[in-house]
């Protein structure tokens, strides 16, 4: 079946099998391999994308359900040449080691930061509870996300 959806701001029309997972459509049909598969069962969060602004595990979502909706993947947050504040702070605080969880972590954190303000440590940990990282111990991820929130807040103040 053919569906139309918005991916990282661009309208895309794709042909999907009725059982296809959103994850496979993103990675294989659209070639956006930034979104990762760590378990295929909704447990690791490596496949997290935003669906109409809400983080979901794309390995559990049927692509067919996404017709007319908006999907944001890690590629939509900023490119390697133009990282967003969140991407930059996560890296500089040591929140990405092997990097396989990083796209999912960033997408979940982007949803949190889109609410504005500077979240507490506990709020960041809560927002990232579905993103397993085996490398970092999480402290450096939390620090990076909060630093990005501070930077965003300062930028918002500067802009207003």
């Amino acid at each position, binding site marked *: 079946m053919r569906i139309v959806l918005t991916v990282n701001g661009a309208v895309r029309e794709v042909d999907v099998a009725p059982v296809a997972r959103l994850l496979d459509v993103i*990675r294989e049909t659209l070639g*956006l*391999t*930034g*979104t*990762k*598969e*760590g*378990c*295929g*069962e909704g*447990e*690791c969060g*490596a496949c997290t994308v935003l669906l109409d602004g809400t983080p979901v595990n794309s390995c559990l979502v049927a692509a067919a359900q996404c017709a007319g909706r908006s999907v944001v*993947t*890690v*590629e939509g*947050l*900023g*490119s*390697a*040449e133009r*990282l967003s504040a969140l*991407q*930059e702070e*996560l*890296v*500089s*605080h*040591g929140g*990405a*080691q*092997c*990097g*396989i*969880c*990083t*796209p999912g972590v*960033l997408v979940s954190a982007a949803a949190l930061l889109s609410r504005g303000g500077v979240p507490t*440590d506990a709020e*960041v*940990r*809560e927002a*990232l*509870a*579905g*993103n*397993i*990282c*085996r*490398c*970092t*111990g*999480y*402290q*450096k*991820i*939390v620090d990076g996300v909060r630093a990005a929130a501070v930077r965003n807040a300062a930028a918002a103040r500067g802009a207003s």
Partner: protein
Amino acid sequence: MAPVVGQAVPRVDGPAKASGSARYVDDLTRPGMLFGATLRSPVPRGRLLGVDRDPSFDWSGVTVVTAADVPVNVVATIERDQPVLAAGEVRHVAEPIALVACEDRLRLERALAHLTPRIEPLPAVLTIGEALEARTAIHGADNVMKRYAITKGRGRDGLTGCEVVVTGRYETGAQEHVYIEPQGMLAWWEGDDAHVVGSLQCPYYVQKGIKTVFGLADDGVDVTQATTGGGFGGKEEYPTVVALHALLLARKSGRPVKLVYGRKEDVEATTKRHPSVVEITTGCDRDGTFRAFAARVVFDGGAYVTLTPVVLSRGALHATGPYRWDDVSVEALAVATNTPPNGAFRGFGAPQTQWAVERHVDRIARTLDLDPLDLRLRNLLRSGDTTATGQLLAESVGAQRCADEATWASGYRNRRGAGPVVAGRTARGVGVACFWHGAGFTGSGERYLKGRVAVDLLPGGQARIRTASTDIGQGTETVFRQIAADALGVPMASVDFAIPSTRVVPDSGPTVASRTVMVVGSIVEAAARELAERVGREAERSGSTRAEAHERLAGTPALATCEKQYEPPPGLAWDDATYTGDAYPVFGWGCDVAEVEVDLDTFETKVTGFWTAVDVGRAIHPVLCAGQVEGGTLQAIGWALTEKLVTRGGKVLNPRMTDYIVPTSLDAPPFTTLLVEEPYSRGPGGGAKGVGELPMDGGAPAIAAAVEHATSLVLDRLPLLPEDLFEASGAARSGGGPA
């Protein structure tokens, strides 16, 4: 040029990883590529009579590979006992029996389901206890794979006459790595040349495995690392198996083949941390001065030898903990069982024996009614002391400083002095553990290994490091550039790091054993220094600037490259026959303080604070270094509290992330990480030592000590699940008390 060593410079691979453009093996494709899958044994032991193909299935376009297709059916590690595909017998559940490949993944699954191994089951040996009983012999007559003995002074006889003798028994279970990227390889052939790219730690291990099976020369094999999504030892030896399987399918089908494991398959089939049983008897003076240490260490090696002898050796060498003993006897053995081979996992045997010795030190403290920290401080190794193997600790011994810093930062003494805090249904306590970790290969390992690194001068003021040491997340790419940039006297941006590929980089030895920065980093530094001198001499000779001299050398192939081999420190002496001498060039040291809250109704334990001080010699990159410490510590916390591999009949019952529980951001405590620097005179960047594995050693015993402080429950077996605490509390209430 301001030095970059010691600075938290931007992580070089950061932008690619944070933007999703870094390519891991599952992100790669090749034209005409097939997908591969593996048929595995459903039973732990049996005679393999054959593999049946369902004749009603349409096998067109499906490639099937069995043992008959394997030129030399051996996975080359230490022994040659493990087949690439089972032939005639199976020795563990999930052992690979056959391989299939086809273009379409749905059909691939169906094809796999229509392939059935015919197996006549045999009695299996599934635990350390059954292996030692040896009623069923699966390895020699006694199931023992390997033995070591370490003796110092009077050995076990030293216990005679000691004022206080204490005995205990300590156990640990298997642990799964749960790298978030499962194992995977993409393989193809170009004529007779084998190519693989994939998720791996040690390109030359994979190369050796391929050469053995296909009878190829060095240059007939190209092994390239893709960006690798975590390893922790799990991608040390196992990727060789995946690479061989993918290559076999590619050879038979004539197409590129990608073989990527699903999570369940990965947990069921790949290596785990060796389960262990350690019995310790010690003698000390009434004031707590340690005198004699005797231990029997038993590891479960699993069905094939793989790396078990080396893991056992490291376990045995760390068994005494970071303490002074006059007399030592360590008897260590590894037994065979019909479980998947246990293998490399961060710490490599040392976490198991240090769990035991740290729990035992707490037991001594209890017996003597001494504070556990005071008892440790009295006996910690210092400069000038000798270890169990008679190694004189001449320098860089930060044990005491780590203990001071961690206990001071955490307020350990006050918290401990105040006693457990019970509020409603929660009890809070703190615990401490001290630990050490030998950096680099054991004994003569580095001497045999002869690790090599090349550094090239390139046009445009650039340089390039070529090494087989892989970045699997630790930050090797960044840290090596820092070391080389300072040694060359150029900006870090001018230094490149070649993608590890066996046709491009020399064999630096494997990415293991906390040796990357200390050992291989020192070769990088030496090669870069030599090039800097060449540039200096050329500038002087020709009266030109260094930049001009650089360009001239870069254009002269004979002078542009410096390849160096590791020079072991002079005077290091190790005797494999007696297991005496300098076991490691140097040790890293550490002290952990854990604070826990135990729910007295549910017996759940939450780690609420964690302070760790580690002596790393010199932190080349403080943020990345602390990242290693925190990540390793959290793996130790998981091992301590939630990670239990449940098996029945040799089969894993919880092969998923739903029920094999690794810590989430909510389970992880806030970390306070203190980097202590007692420089090692031969370490790069002004004295760096290994750090990768050290943080795995202290977390579990510190947590058990904190649980004990909070609840008075003494637990000597990992993990500490709520049901274990519940059981212990029942035993304590019924007056049985801890054994």
